[in-house]
């Protein structure tokens, strides 16, 4: 998976991966930002494809509810919880 790879947070074991090549952009879509109950995402800068993918800015606040992953119509988000 290409795209933003967040560093492992200190006290949580949640990682969020965004596939920029599958994402269709938070301007036309933006469902991930919209459904997230913890305001984890911001809009990233525009990529070469002309879209602004989500940027998981506040992963520390993420509770791994998986809503963003479930509502992404393009399978561009993977939320992982590691032991």
């Amino acid at each position, binding site marked *: 998976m290409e795209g933003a790879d967040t560093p492992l947070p200190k006290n949580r074991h949640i990682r969020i991966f965004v596939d920029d090549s599958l994402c269709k952009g938070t301007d*036309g879509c933006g469902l991930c930002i919209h459904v997230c109950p913890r305001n984890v995402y911001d809009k990233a800068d525009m990529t070469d494809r002309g879209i602004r993918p989500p940027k998981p800015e506040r992963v520390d606040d993420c509770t791994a509810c998986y809503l963003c992953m479930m509502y992404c119509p393009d399978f561009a988000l993977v939320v992982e919880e590691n032991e």
Partner: protein
Amino acid sequence: MKPTHPLHKYMRPSAIRTANCPGCGNGILTQAILRAIDEEGLDMDDFVFVSGIGCAAWIPSPLFLADTLHTTHGRPIAFATGVKLAKPDRRVMVISGDGDLLAIGGNHFIHAARRNIDMTVVCVNNGIYGMTGGQVAPTTPIGLRTMTSPYGNIENDFDISGLATAAGATYVARWTVIQTRQITKSVRKALEHRGFSFIEVVSHCPVQFGRKTGMGSSTQMLDWLKEISVTATKASGMTPAELEGKIVVGEFVDIDKPVLDVELERMRRDAQGGDDAEN
């Protein structure tokens, strides 16, 4: 190491960038269906996916890495009937849109329900003909201005799940894409159910419906779906006036009746075991 999406293993590598518009509800539904197959531990090689013409029909074709039959407009259920009866060990799933299954395909839909043939039909209801640019559909809300109802739709719309029930479907459920977990549960139930299983999924179309009719963006339409969804239990205590403009979601039918392919097998045993008689 970066992970792949857990459901990518069910998809054709060349097709994972779908043709869906940004924010299309069909993408949410696609995930819900594949999650159901994944959670049930089923093998894609046991399936035949059949779809008609329209955006919804592109959910399995070419995306799903499985035997897929992309048919003519309105007829996937008829093709699926041939597949199922000729090879009953296949899990047959039809995924197609409201215009496809209910307008041009309405006749095949009611007869397959009547026959209680063992298949799962997911009807993706976006209330419009999306792929062709936003024309009015039998499910378009009354009053809506579309490309072919420029003065506002003056026709009544179908209660698709009601129609399925009346025609004889033995599992009927309706959800919107906001209830994605419930869709997965219903698809799992439908896969386990022997008989004609019908799931209507109201899915939002942000471009041909949302943008063209002024209903809003994908996120706005998703909020709208959440707002107008009413569970069947709650709806039973509401008046028709209160239900105006609402979508009643839930499981409506879950019964067992003789299944066509099973009856066919019994009929064959009788015909073959009967008296050898005349030519």
